[in-house]
């Protein structure tokens, strides 16, 4: 068990390193000089350009920049923003809580509704309720989130004036954006849960349980569901990645602060250190969550626990 954890940890670190490398070269090899963008359209002397390049280390050969960056990252320093000179770490940490709350709430919505709908759908499989839920969840995953967001705002903020259309604040500010993402998430989870329940229902052990005379309720909820949730947990790990990414769109539509917004702005401004830092942050969370998912597997699934 300990060995498994260590191994997973090591792999995660390798992946993180790869991510750092990939993002670094992706951003640095692509066209467009960030300093030029910074001063775009303003008369600035070549000396200043050189000075700025030097300040951000952009005058060094690429491999040196890479090694320096790597070294700094290990010391927890992600550099500072090309745009406002603010340390990337500070900038991201200021934004992170908002994204975290948004992601967590939408995750919670997705799980609660997703599991509920998935279970109901599987229990009433091939009946009208199941058809309805399947249809709903397909719609959930097929609607563009920005469109859903626009429609929700139109309804709940502009017409009904129940909920704020934008911004950050109390819980009520979270509801619409989290609901928007939750619609997709619940759709995904509902489908996943339904599928995996239906798969488990056909496992031979379910027949044994029935042969023992257990009521259908405990067969389904105690045995089948618990078995079915194991694969669903992976899905949830992946979903978190989706939701984090979805924050880019949602935060911009709802004018929320957050890492997604920072990334979008930084990408458009080619603020390399910020883009790198933000992607690394997202990637680390993703890796961490999936590591936790892997380990939680071991807790839920005894077959892996003892392996």
């Amino acid at each position, binding site marked *: 068990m300990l060995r498994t954890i260590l191994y997973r940890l090591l792999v995660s670190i390798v992946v993180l390193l790869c991510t750092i490398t990939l993002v670094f070269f992706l951003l640095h090899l692509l*066209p467009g*000089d*960030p300093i030029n963008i910074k001063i775009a*359209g303003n008369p*600035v002397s070549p000396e200043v350009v050189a000075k700025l390049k030097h300040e951000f280390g952009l005058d060094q050969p690429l491999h040196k920049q890479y090694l320096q960056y790597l070294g700094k990252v290990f010391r927890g320093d992600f550099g500072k923003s090309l*745009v406002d000179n603010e340390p990337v770490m500070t900038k991201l940490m200021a934004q992170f809580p908002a994204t975290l709350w948004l992601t967590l709430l939408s995750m919670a919505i997705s799980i609660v509704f997703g599991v509920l709908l998935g279970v109901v759908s599987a229990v009433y499989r091939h009946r009208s309720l199941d058809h309805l839920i399947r249809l709903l969840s397909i719609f959930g995953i097929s609607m563009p989130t920005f469109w859903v967001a626009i429609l929700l705002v139109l309804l709940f903020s502009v017409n009904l004036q129940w909920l704020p259309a*934008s911004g*950050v604040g109390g819980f009520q500010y979270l509801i619409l954006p989290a609901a928007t993402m939750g619609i997709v998430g619940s759709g995904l989870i509902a489908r996943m849960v339904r599928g995996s329940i239906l798969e488990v229902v056909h496992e031979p052990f379910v027949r044994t349980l029935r042969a023992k005379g257990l009521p259908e309720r405990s067969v389904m909820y105690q045995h089948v569901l618990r078995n079915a949730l194991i694969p669903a947990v992976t899905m949830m790990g992946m979903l978190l990645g989706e939701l984090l990414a979805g924050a880019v769109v949602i935060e911009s539509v709802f004018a929320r602060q957050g890492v997604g917004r*920072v990334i979008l702005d930084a990408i458009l401004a080619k603020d390399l250190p910020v883009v790198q830092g933000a992607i690394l942050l997202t990637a680390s969370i993703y890796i961490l969550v999936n590591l936790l998912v892997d380990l939680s597997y071991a807790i839920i699934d005894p077959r892996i626990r003892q392996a």
Partner: protein
Amino acid sequence: SNGDKNAPANTASTNEAPASTPTEGGELTFALAGSPSTLDVGVTSSDIDFRVGRNIFDSLVGELPDHTIKPWLAESWEISADKKSYTFKLRTDVTFHDGTPFNAEAVKVNFDRSADPNGKSVYAKQLLGPYESSEVIDESTLKVNFKEPFTPFLSNLAKSTLGIQSPESFKKYGDQVGQHPVGTGPFKLASWVANSEIVLEKNSDYKWPSPAAEHSGPAYLDKIVLKLIPEESTRVSSLQSGQVLAAESIPAQNIVALEKDPNYQIQKALLPGATFQLTFNNEKAPWNNVKLRQAVQSTVDIDAIVKSLYLGTFPRSWSPLSSSTLGYDSSLEDSYKVDIQHANQLLDEEGWKLGADGIREKDGKPLEINYIDITGNREKRGDIIKMVQQQVKQIGVKMNVSIMAAGPYVDALKAASYDLVGHSFAGGDPDILRTIFSKANWSTNEYANSNFARFYDPQIEQQLTDAYQEADPEKRIATYKELQQYFVKNAVSIPVYVFPYTIAESKKVSGITFDFPGYPQFYDVAVSK
């Protein structure tokens, strides 16, 4: 065309709130159309930073809509005979938010910092032009020296870009001063959550309001919460859902709706400077041919564009200078009209014959306009091009539109590989013409610059120089009018619209005013219960 002729810059359009005694206290929630990246006005070049900065920093002088310059932190000034030195007498009762006294030394520190050729200042440096030095004569007297006469200086000085920051704050915060602005203004920064909100607090010691102010003493409001909402429709929804009391940069379609709504009022300020114009690359064939440019000029139906896209809320522009700029030549209005026949004739004369696919060609080459722009449909500029693209088809011109990310866009500017580019340049003084048309501002291999027209004519260059050194306002204005006539006649660029900076606010809000370049001032604002 749109009845805005000779209108003052500030037009509180619809029903102004009844002028009763303003309520003191309370807070204003205001939706800002972006996220300031820094409030270090001396360094940045971004409008949104200056808009917020306007309320934190005061300037030495103020400019009224009629372009007269009035004292503010400077009580008076004198211009030397050679027009190269300005001596300011400063107020002595002013302190920064951090308690530092405001004095000649403080102003010198600010100017020197912005003018430092190796410093990071972008726009302030430009506004200081041929700045040479500042001399502290005494605690309250400062002499500013230029290398050559520089008439736009006083107007530039009125902008928040040259607003005075606390010299202590430079020492204390260094690089980070943009996150910790300290000025002498009616409001001071209370908190700032990036991408979310900036909170300004009343400066209770304030008693040196701008010349345009309507009251004295501290501001009425206790607090201003600036919500940062770049997404325009979200901004509007926030206003409509009552989340904010006022919002800026309202898109045309919402202006129309909000104007009809009895709960809201709309305020507009036509921004001075270079209007949004489609600028030809005057150096590159075939568009270095004035006939060809003129053909396009008489084809593009600006009225149709402005009507479709801005629903009449943006006035069309006739000159490279905005109508609120000093020296604007209103005689250019209606000076040309859409005339497809004329355009076709011009092209025929130049030997561009219609090809089989409806595109004109000469020597086997099709007549194409390569237009470049940056991502994002800011102020519907992308939509303008879409319309232009369709319109020039009528005269057999093919327009290729490349919308690029910032990086490649700047690269393309440097490489001068485009035929047409759209841009505007905010600025108070007509000297802005030099920014966009002087040879000194051509892009080089090293960096992109502001003369996107790649325009150069020795005679015009001389006139541009003369105009900014000329101290006599009459003569100066006359030169600028001549220049405007020239640029329009030669179709160096095609002016499209004048940008009205627009604020929509709840009827509860009164007293939002604009300074001269058109930035909002909250000093006189009151919110009724």
